[in-house]
């Protein structure tokens, strides 16, 4: 069975641009969470979606937004990119609303903002 997939694997953008990251959860999983991980730190929670509704939001500015589609895949959008947005963006899926359930992580998208 396929695990959590994320695309693209690597991305280079310049300041002020917009980026869209994509995630496909494990088949049967209805919850997707997004995390940002910078070097030397743990993953930082951005959003959780369950059944296409936002269930939780971390301390990120409104430049960050996300959505979940009827097939439970998800997109993370970041507007007006800053240098500090350079990080590994991780997507995690779980069958039920995550956090109280094991989350399965994808390999991440490495975003570099120049």
């Amino acid at each position: 069975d396929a695990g959590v997939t994320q695309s693209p694997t690597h991305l280079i953008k310049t300041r002020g641009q917009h980026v869209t990251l994509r995630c496909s959860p494990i088949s049967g999983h209805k919850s997707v969470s997004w995390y940002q991980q910078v070097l030397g730190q743990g993953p930082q929670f951005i959003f959780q979606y369950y059944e296409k509704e936002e269930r939780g939001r971390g301390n990120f500015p409104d430049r960050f937004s996300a959505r979940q589609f009827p097939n439970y895949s998800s997109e993370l959008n970041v507007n007006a990119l800053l240098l500090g947005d350079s990080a590994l963006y991780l997507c995690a899926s779980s069958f039920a609303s995550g956090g109280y359930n094991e989350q399965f992580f994808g390999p991440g998208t490495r975003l570099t903002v120049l």
Partner: protein
Amino acid sequence: DQQVKQNSPSLSVQEGRISILNCDYTNSMFDYFLWYKKYPAEGPTFLISISSIKDKNEDGRFTVFLNKSAKHLSLHIVPSQPGDSAVYFCAASGVNTGGFKTIFGAGTRLFVKA
């Protein structure tokens, strides 16, 4: 603010001995705790979890202990094996007025020497 802290950035243990990884949290909203293991170039993988209604959960060589009054949890690995060498993240989940959140610590890098 760091709501979940892993104060030891690294730990070195001899093969066959016990590894003890520690984690402290500050927010009483957390009621579910998880440990994840991460190898280089991969997303974190779930290891073991514990609900706040328990003080111990065991799975093979891995045991997690929770001390709610001290807001402290620990992961014990016995016996440690070289394949256990990885970064270990502690995570805490809960719900507050902002919705659901999962907060990760910064991680502890475990080295198991053969």
